[in-house]
């Protein structure tokens, strides 16, 4: 990602539908050979963006360039890309092999070349021996691989994927995630991948583009999104369980950034940064909370907390934690773990913290053997 021209350039593209959905004044640069994930809740415009790149939708305004060529008005087949659909869109009357070479046949590819490419695609996706089956005779995972094989057989440098894993069960999803990532790197293709699942985005992407209401909320590496969410929406969407977002009015004044007014602020704390004490004395810097429920997951336990005047928060503690619902606890965190957001517009504030605001709870932290810390 040096001065090289981006592979896909989306310039001020808008596409609006009757019912408000769509994308508004979108600009994205996608570098060659990268794995880009469009992430967002349903109706955020991520699928529309993908379909605009594919050419299945036409932009109302703006330009789309692929490999330095203006493709805004070019039909999908001339854009040199392939696509994996959420439903896989396999042709039910054709066999696996016929499905894979459908595009090659349409483009009148040479017979020998076609056989070679087919064999290669079958090999790469591990579908050998299933060539003559019909899609109805395959399992969900196998169908997904047929869709992948059809996408890579033509050797297009760009592959678009529209929630390709959402019809698979959780276990398979995990392994296919890795397979797709490996495949992308082996073939050196550019992948634009749409999902609403932030785990998929975090684990696969070079670049995550988080969208909301047809606009980009934040674009960056998974680490950027997690460690420095640009908005309170990004903070709440990325990470599982989500970051606790609390109005700053419940904080002691000395914990606030210098010169900030509590009414204008939201503080966000990742579940793993929250520390719980049951026996700690009521300290002015701590937030009192009540345990609502706990969820034991093996290596860790999620503790759901109710805090007066807020929507509550979640703490993530290692190992097994015994806290019965109703237990009063007090919450604290390391000062650097706090994320500050503007309450009105939601954007991130780089807070200048007062010197003494760094909480020094370490003294009584270790006094509570019932609750370990991460």
């Amino acid at each position, binding site marked *: 990602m040096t001065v090289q021209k981006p592979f896909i350039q989306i310039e001020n593209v808008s596409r609006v539908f009757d019912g408000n959905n769509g994308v508004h004044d979108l600009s994205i640069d996608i570098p060659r050979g990268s794995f880009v994930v469009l992430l967002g809740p349903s109706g955020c415009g991520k699928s529309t963006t993908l379909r605009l790149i594919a050419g299945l939708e036409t932009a109302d305004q703006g330009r789309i360039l692929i490999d330095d060529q203006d493709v805004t008005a070019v039909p*999908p087949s001339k854009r040199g890309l392939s696509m994996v*659909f959420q439903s896989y869109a396999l*042709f039910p009357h054709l066999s696996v092999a016929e499905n894979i070479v459908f595009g090659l046949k*349409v483009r009148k590819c040479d017979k020998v070349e076609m056989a070679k490419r087919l064999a290669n695609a079958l090999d790469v996706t591990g579908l050998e021996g299933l060539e003559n089956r019909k899609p109805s005779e395959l399992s969900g995972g196998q169908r997904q691989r047929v869709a992948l094989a059809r996408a890579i057989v*033509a050797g297009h440098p760009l592959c678009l994927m529209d929630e390709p894993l959402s019809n698979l069960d959780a276990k398979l999803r995990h392994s296919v995630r890795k397979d797709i990532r490996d495949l992308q790197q082996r073939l050196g293709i550019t992948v634009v991948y749409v999902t609403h699942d932030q785990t998929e985005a975090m684990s696969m992407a070079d670049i995550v583009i988080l969208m909301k209401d047809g606009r980009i909320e934040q674009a960056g590496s998974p680490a950027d999104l997690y460690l420095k969410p640009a908005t309170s929406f990004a903070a709440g969407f990325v990470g599982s369980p989500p970051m606790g977002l609390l109005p700053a009015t419940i904080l002691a004044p000395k914990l606030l950034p210098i010169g900030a007014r509590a009414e204008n602020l939201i503080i966000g704390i990742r579940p793993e940064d929250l520390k719980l004490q049951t026996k700690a004395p009521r300290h002015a810097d701590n937030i009192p909370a009540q345990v609502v429920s706990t969820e034991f997951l093996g290596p860790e336990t999620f503790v759901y907390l109710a805090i007066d005047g807020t929507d509550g928060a979640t703490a993530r503690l290692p190992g097994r934690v015994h806290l019965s619902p109703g237990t009063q606890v007090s919450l604290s965190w390391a000062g650097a773990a706090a994320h500050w957001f503007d309450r009105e517009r939601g954007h991130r504030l780089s807070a200048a913290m007062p010197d003494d605001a760094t909480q020094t709870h370490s003294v009584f932290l270790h006094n509570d053997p019932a609750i370990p810390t991460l």
Partner: protein
Amino acid sequence: MTRLPENNRPQNNLITLQKRRQALYGWMLMAPALALLSLFAFYPTIATFFSSLFSRGTTRHPSVFAGFENYGDLFADPTFWTVASNNLIYAGVTIPVSIIFALIMALWANAHIPARSFIRSAYFTPTILPMIAAANLWLFFYTPDLGIIDRITGFFGAEPTNWLGQPETALAAVIIVTIWKEAGFFMIFYLAALQTIPPDLREAARIEGAGRWTYTRRVLLPLLMPTTIFVFVNALINSVKLIDHLFILTKGGPNNASKLILYWIWEMAFAYFDRPHAAAMTMMVLLVLGIVAIAQFRLVEKRTHYR
């Protein structure tokens, strides 16, 4: 159970009892359908076959066994050949043309066009009309000089034509009415089938470089194959049984030019009271339809393996 031989294992008998019970159960399940089919299909067929083997009885000459004489008479009758070839032409034109029209109309009515539901119901209207009413409508259309068809052709300076009254055009006129009536009905089936085809397939095909025609030929038509066969069977049955409009339009004339087999059978049986010959003709129709049905089922099994 009381007279079991010493060595026989009682288990064996239990199994036979079980089997008998199963068989009885099967027959009980079959009974309603079997009774109805016997009453309305099997018995009439056999009775027809019998009456086709006897001569026509009058008070003076009671009917006697005549063997296949009635069949021989039919083959010797030139009307038989006229009617048979009429029906072949009728089937040969109405079946493919109404299917093709139905498909085109369905594709059109399924596309994103304005007033889509209006177009759909407009295409479907002929199906709701009774055939007799439709035939009366078309009688007006075909009226020489006054009908809408002659008005239009007359506008371009053509002479008035008696479409239904001359042997050259009568059959064609009847065929057109049938197509008009049937195509809308078949369109509904195609429309329903088209709506079960996910739009993703079209998009996938577009991305793979398939144009509209390639998509239709390589994806749409194969996926519509089960519907096509269903519609084809219906059209075939109709080409034999749909004769209501003949009563209104031509009565089979002029000079048998538009007479179809079933109309002829009706004429023989109920206008000329020649039951034996009508029965013989019916048997031949049944035979031909039976052969066609067997051939079709073979074809269906071979060609439509889908889902």
